[in-house]
């Protein structure tokens, strides 16, 4: 990285071009190379700046970034930042092994999309929609707004600082990230937060009540639901969720489970159980 400080071609403005272009990154999806066209599209301004006068080198770089790439969308600016730093080094140092650029990209795809999906789909979105949905259920139009705010603050921060931080890290990125198991720890922490919220939402959002009241002749009745409530409130929704989870793990299709639940609801209502 010492060479970089001597001749810095990439400016903050170029990094911001990466930041903006990364929004369009997933717009052209290839079935085999996935987000590769978008990655190439996003990195074009940097490549033009570095290789602009050398058509051959530019073509080489364009092709390099048309190779397979896929990642959680919010993590891509970070990868673009790293790649910008590496391309800068490659353009200055003829001995630089350009194959290492794609090697780093591929190496980052797995862990970054793992951590990105856990954070964005599995945690921020769950918290945002959990709070948003419960507000919406009370009839407040703030619900959808809060959902978007909670989710998008981390989303845009990660995108913005991702590209800057990625560029700063450059080629050292992998060692820094993997050392000390920082990524694994963060992923586990995100999963913990997501699961806690899911547990809470099973209690507050799933409803399953037995309306059956067993009648044993004169005045002796048994309200089945009250027994369950005595054991633990919301135990039926919890049981149902784990039952569905078990079915999914056995490979039952979600649509089949959905039809099953609807049939159970209709039958339960028909026989006066639910």
């Amino acid at each position, binding site marked *: 990285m010492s060479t970089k400080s001597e001749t810095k071609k990439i400016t903050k403005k170029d990094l911001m071009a990466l930041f903006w272009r990364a929004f369009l990154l997933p717009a052209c999806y290839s*079935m085999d190379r996935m987000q590769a066209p978008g990655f190439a599209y996003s990195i074009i301004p940097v490549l033009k700046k570095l290789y602009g006068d050398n058509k051959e080198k*530019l073509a080489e770089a364009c092709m390099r970034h048309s190779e397979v790439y896929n990642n959680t969308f919010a993590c891509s600016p970070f990868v673009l930042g790293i790649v910008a730093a590496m391309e800068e080094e490659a353009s200055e140092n003829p001995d630089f092994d350009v194959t290492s650029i794609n090697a780093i990209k591929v190496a980052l795809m797995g862990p970054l999309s793992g951590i990105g999906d856990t954070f964005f789909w599995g945690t921020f979105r769950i918290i945002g929609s959990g709070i948003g949905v419960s507000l919406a259920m009370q009839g407040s139009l703030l619900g959808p707004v809060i959902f978007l705010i909670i989710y*998008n603050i981390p989303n845009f921060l990660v995108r913005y600082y991702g590209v800057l931080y990625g560029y700063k890290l450059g080629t050292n990125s992998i060692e820094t990230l993997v050392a000390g198991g920082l990524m694994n720890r963060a992923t586990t922490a995100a999963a913990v937060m997501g699961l806690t919220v899911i547990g809470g*939402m099973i*209690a507050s959002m799933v409803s399953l009540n037995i309306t059956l009241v067993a009648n044993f002749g004169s005045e002796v009745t048994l309200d089945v639901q009250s027994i369950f409530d005595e054991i633990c409130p919301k135990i039926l929704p919890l049981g149902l969720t784990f039952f569905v989870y078990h079915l999914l793990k056995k490979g039952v299709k979600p649509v089949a489970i959905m039809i099953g639940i609807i049939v159970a609801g209709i039958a339960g209502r028909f026989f006066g159980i639910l």
Partner: protein
Amino acid sequence: MAQALLVALIAGICKIDNRIFGMTMIQRPLIVSTLVGFVYGDPVAGMMFGAQFELLSMGLVGIGAHSGMPEITLGSALCSAFALSSGTGLEVALTLALPISTFGTSIGYLTWIPLNHILSERSKKAAETADTRTMEICQWLGLFNYFFFPFLVVFIGMLVGAPLFEWLIEVIPAFITDGINVASGMLPALGFALLMQLTYTRKLAPYLFIGFVVVALMGLSNVGVAIVGAILAVLVFNNSENQNKEVNADVNEI
């Protein structure tokens, strides 16, 4: 007609959430259906539909190579429009939303997915000659496909589907709609179970139960449980550092 056009426009714009806006979640039913609600002059009713479908589809997310994901953006736009234009039949619309979304996926396989694959091949060819202009055009055309076909499908769906839906509501007997109502309380369990597939492990199970207990027994709100979750996450993060250090220390001693 104007309403159908507006609903289709909402579907198209929300569909390109991932493709140009940076995945802001406007693609989710809670947002899509609220916007559709504005078209019919009743955003709150749209939002109510969206909230229920949001719960149901919570686990249906576009992760990695997870292909064949139901097109819930299209499903929620169409079905909330059906529910709102008919005035009744919220439960029926909710029941139809997932099958319609699943059908939407096959439309993707017939339109934007192959078309964008062709564009991506064109882009790769342009890369060989450093034709960055063509590469950029391919990218924007890809975006257009992601917008245009969902727009078109929802527009046609609105024209064809709305009369069918009205008919459906009339012929369905009351005990079935009541039953679907009961089922719609249970359906979020499917959403959460799908979601659990993403992060749930036996080792992390206690955290799910903590979340359950603080709500079921202690009556905490969703904000409350999110705060508890955040605290637990920090604890886990810090403790895992200690564990790492201990392991390192052990290695050094040996």
